[in-house]
């Protein structure tokens, strides 16, 4: 709760508090450029980026950044909305190291670009895969069904 007050002061009250209780805080920011600034503020209290999930509310996407720490297992969740005009958001790799693979996974399955990521490649699917399969508009068509990749035929 101290953290939320501190964040409000840092970004001049431009955040929306959804939940605020002992051990769990959820906030939403509308301007995605604030994300990196907030992450810098969180760095003192929270050790790791616990997970990064993406929800497809077509046409916009919602990113949930879950931060946690080792001492008392508090959770801090930041929700960021990105719209169809620009599928990109700032990378947090230089602040939280665990963001590296989480962001690669989000890029792999949803096609979200992370600006400033050092190594933005696919992590689960093969390199030359067509499309991003967890999006709502992804169709399993014949191109995907017959895709075998590399030199393999089956």
């Amino acid at each position, binding site marked *: 709760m101290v953290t939320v007050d501190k964040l409000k002061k840092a970004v001049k009250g431009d955040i929306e508090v959804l939940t605020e209780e002992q051990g769990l805080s959820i906030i939403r920011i509308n301007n995605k450029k604030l994300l990196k600034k907030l992450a810098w503020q969180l760095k003192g209290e929270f050790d790791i980026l616990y997970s990064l999930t993406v929800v497809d509310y077509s046409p916009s996407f919602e990113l949930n950044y879950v931060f946690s720490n080792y001492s008392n297992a508090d959770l801090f969740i930041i929700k960021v909305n990105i719209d169809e005009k620009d599928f990109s958001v700032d990378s947090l790799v230089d602040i939280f190291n665990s963001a590296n693979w989480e962001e690669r996974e989000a890029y792999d399955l949803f096609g979200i670009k992370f600006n400033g990521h050092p190594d933005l490649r696919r992590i*689960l*699917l093969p390199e030359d895969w067509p499309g991003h*399969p967890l999006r709502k508009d*992804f169709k399993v068509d014949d191109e995907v*069904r017959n895709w075998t*990749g*590399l030199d*393999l035929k089956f």
Partner: protein
Amino acid sequence: MEESNEFSYPGLYEVVFMKAEKFINTVLNWGRSNSLWPLTFGTSCCAIEMMTFGATKVDADRLGVLFNGDSPRQSDLILVSGTITKKMARRLLNVYEQMPDPKYVIAVGACNVSGGLYHDSYNTIEGIDRIMPVDVFIPGCPPRPEEFLDAVRVLQKLIKENRSKAQKNGNS
């Protein structure tokens, strides 16, 4: 020159050679079928049942299935247990191609028979018989450890009767 349709009896040496070859094959098949060293290729939940197959209660050692390290170069049998995705298929073949001949394959679980739960998915292959010759299929999701024993007995019978895929393809 006319072709003759007359039947000619084999000579003494040919008969001796054929008898000896048959005897040697019988002995070889007996030996191979009773010392199947498996390579465990577990990618998901069927691998849990495969561990039970090697453990005390369902003892695999009494059939000669000895879990002896995990090197493809010393294995006769590969137990493919778990879903094989399209990215994993190339890796599975890399392991399979390192095994010495003759090699036998047991496909464990519904995913390896037909795709199972992930049938018509975007990233799984529907049955590993599309990429490699399979001797015995074990259905079930996942199968019980006793069915592994049954599959090994079936494979031993196939080897003794010269009917496994490796022997049919002339790789024995």
